[in-house]
């Protein structure tokens, strides 16, 4: 018994570790076995278990404290909309709204940003004056950054009277911490998710199968591609001697890693929700097919972009100061600029908040915020010039080749932003950028040495030619599925379902065992967390 307890205590609960698969199996069996009216209660218990297990069960506190934070946050999310609804005067409603958002933001700052701020401030302080970091992170429930945003959205929706406040605390707690949306999102909308959460569901083999297939595909992306690429990008970025060409190769590989990691996590989570017949919003729509950065952000982390627009940008634009700014700009710069300047300022606020949300460190604010804002706004301002240039060069902007060029340009711009995102600090990102500029001409001359550097990075990660082939195969699968879905409207799972059972099972077993054999996991490898695990 002692041995069993010890083993359980040391189990690491992560999406790609066996305990999660066991959890999913138990959840599925219990969910479809209980009377249908109690199904949502099983999910609620699942939330609590998921949050507790994710934190760890080495001690009662480790399990219970994140759970307590989750319940406290749920209590705020539950009570503030009720207060708003009951408050008669607008002034009182607004006060409740501000208080609710402030409380949730405080939780976010405390659990997610405090250390980043301290570390940033320490950078400017002399020795002896530096502040010691405070670690609240172990108390923070998994996905706090996601469910706080969902909660804020819910409070604001009730304030705007889009729908009434939920009267049951348990139901609010279920929506707030619905476990498939915790690790890396998506950010759920209360009105959208509540129907499928509280509707009774009978076991549906088809949906179960589709969900399981998506989970397998997620494992493939995460364990075969992302975690394999991670060791190489780590070796390239971590070496101060890495010159331009290897670094640029590393950035493209990082793009593959980041996409496989984040979208892999989404596939596991959305597949899990699909097994339970809960509809969660998609968070990705083949982002690398975007022709510009604005479109990229409509395809990448979709729910964050929509949330930020709905709850930051539009309210800001409708606010009195922005209205006055618009009037002032119209007087000063004319009608056109008078209209666009306030929207650019609101966009800046939006991107800074997104940057802060990614972790608060200056590198995030810059790479996931300000830099993207500069690129998007710059692109829009220079659009007339680009139009003239392409007219002058007689470029057919509807041609496939131009489309591919635009896709590649967008990828390059994102890689530039990820140069800073992947660096330890903003300064080291800037240094790496300078190094790339400085060594680029030399690298072009000594291209063999650059290739050698890349091969050395693979070798230092313990990889051989087969690993490179596996990475290439993974990339080919992603690309093929992407093209089939994007360009031909192909539903891969449905097509698989429509083929005969031998082909279907062959494909499924192939991918399952491909992950089991070629995945990066198990003793000797660390169970890697998802990059967007906030």
């Amino acid at each position, binding site marked *: 018994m002692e*041995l069993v307890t*010890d083993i359980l205590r040391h*189990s*690491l609960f992560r999406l790609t570790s*066996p305990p999660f698969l066991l959890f999913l199996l138990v959840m599925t069996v219990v969910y479809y076995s209980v009377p249908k009216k109690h199904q949502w209660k099983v999910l609620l218990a699942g939330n609590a278990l998921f949050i507790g297990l994710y934190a760890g069960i080495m001690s009662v506190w480790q399990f219970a404290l994140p759970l307590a934070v989750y319940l406290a946050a749920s209590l705020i999310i539950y009570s503030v909309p009720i207060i708003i609804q009951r408050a008669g005067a607008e002034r009182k409603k607004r006060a409740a709204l501000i208080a609710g958002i402030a409380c949730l933001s405080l939780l976010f700052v405390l659990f997610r940003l405090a250390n980043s701020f301290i570390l940033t401030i320490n950078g400017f302080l002399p020795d002896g004056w530096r502040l010691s970091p405070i670690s609240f992170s172990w108390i923070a429930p998994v996905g706090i950054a996601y469910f706080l945003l969902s909660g804020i959205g819910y409070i604001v929706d009730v304030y705007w009277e889009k729908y009434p406040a939920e009267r049951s605390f348990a139901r609010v707690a279920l929506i707030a911490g619905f476990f498939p949306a915790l690790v890396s999102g998506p950010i759920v909308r209360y009105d959208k998710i509540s129907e499928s959460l509280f509707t009774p569901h009978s076991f549906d083999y088809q949906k179960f199968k589709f969900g399981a297939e998506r989970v397998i595909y997620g494992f493939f992306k995460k364990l075969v591609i992302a975690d394999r690429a991670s060791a190489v990008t780590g070796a390239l970025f971590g070496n101060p001697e890495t010159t331009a060409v290897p670094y640029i190769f590393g950035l493209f590989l990082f793009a593959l890693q980041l996409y496989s990691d984040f979208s892999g996590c989404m596939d596991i989570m959305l597949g899990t929700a699909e097994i339970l017949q809960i509809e969660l919003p998609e968070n990705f729509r083949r982002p690398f097919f975007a022709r510009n950065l604005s479109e990229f952000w409509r395809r990448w982390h979709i729910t964050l972009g929509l949330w930020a627009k709905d709850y930051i940008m539009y309210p800001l634009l409708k606010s009195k100061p922005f209205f006055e700014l618009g009037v002032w700009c119209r007087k000063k710069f004319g009608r056109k600029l008078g209209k666009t300047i306030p929207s650019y300022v609101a966009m800046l606020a939006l991107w800074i908040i997104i940057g802060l949300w990614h972790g608060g460190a200056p590198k995030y604010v810059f790479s996931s915020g300000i830099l993207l804002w500069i690129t998007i706004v710059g692109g829009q301002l220079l659009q007339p010039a680009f139009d003239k240039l392409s007219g002058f060069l007689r470029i057919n902007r509807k041609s496939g080749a131009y489309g591919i060029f635009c896709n590649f340009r967008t990828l390059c711009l994102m890689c530039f932003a990820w140069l800073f995102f992947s660096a330890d600090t903003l300064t080291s990102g800037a240094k790496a950028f300078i190094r790339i500029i400085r060594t680029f001409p030399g690298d072009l001359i000594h291209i063999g040495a650059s290739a050698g550097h890349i091969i050395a990075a693979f070798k230092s990660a313990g990889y051989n030619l087969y690993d490179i082939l596996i990475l290439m195969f993974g990339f080919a699968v992603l690309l093929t599925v992407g093209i089939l879905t994007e360009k031909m409207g192909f539903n891969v799972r449905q097509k698989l379902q429509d083929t005969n059972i031998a082909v279907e099972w062959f494909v499924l077993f192939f991918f399952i065992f491909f992950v089991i054999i070629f995945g990066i996991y198990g003793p*000797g490898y660390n169970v890697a967390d998802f990059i967007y695990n906030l």
Partner: protein
Amino acid sequence: MKTKTGSFSVKAKNAIRLTCFLLIFCVLFSLLTFIFRPNLAEGIHLKQYDTLQDNSLDMIYIGGSVCIVSWMPYEAWNEFGFTSYDVGISSLLAYNFQPLLDEALKTQNPGLIVVDARPFYYTTGHDYEHKYFALVLSSSMKQNTYNNFKVRYNTYKYCYEGEDVSSYFIDMMSFHGSWKSFGDQVKKADNYRKATLTDNPDLTMGFLFVKEWQKIQLGDFSSVTDASPLSETGEQSLLSFIGYLREKNLKALFVVAPYRETEEERMGYNSVKSIVEENGFDFLNANDFVQEMGLSQDADFYNDNHLNVFGAKKYTSFLGEYLREKYSLADHRSDPDYSSWDEGFKRWENQRAAVEENVDALMKSDGE
């Protein structure tokens, strides 16, 4: 009614499909696990132990690589008539002695346990360098037993702590990385399958033949009486193992087989000796009897830590005599129930002669 039947039939079809899918998965998973396990010779020997006739052993020699390359059970049978088996694996760690012996005692009831004392010195509790063999041990022991789980948990706790414990309980998770040598793995798995058949003729009773040789420099530390403390994990494991031996009412001799010992190590063994003797068990550092054994540092070792096939024969003769005198182990050579040992010895002798010839050739080629 029709709809209900239809719906039932769809449900039944789906249930059958799901069951078949899971069955195929299990079969493929088991097959791949079998292929991907290391299937090393020492693992095979642990598995072969299960093919022995119940309660047929007089002695078990348990320990690390020293045990499996130093004690020749068939040689001891031929010279002294008692039956023995090397229950061991390279880099056996102190905390794994108890589960390994406990598992071995499920089918045998030996009168004596000879314990390789070196692991109690080298086990530190941070045994990352020995992780591979710790995993090999768990994959070679009988599966799904408490002792197997214990070894797996120990491996996690002392060799890899900080990672996911559950992956130490699924061999495919531990060894899937060997896909890079898939062809070799298939061959090894096939050898393993053949070697663990009940009527396998190549049984060596746990002894591992090594076709290597090296000259070494032996030191004499017999006069060193100081003792240096063992690591906390080493000492706790030793005490716990001693407690287990007592609980099972077993006779045991703790032995350090000859090798290139250092003064620091001797001081560590002196600690083992004092703990062992304080608890009423015997201790023997065979390094003090190198002359009596007639061991040559130029001919009888294959590296600093291990005897070769010639040295092992000398050590077996010496220790066998010591055991016969001190523990009165029975001589079964005229017992028809043990005739299989005579047959086994003949086959084994041929194997040994071939290896000796090999090592001899190595020595000659070095001389030239």
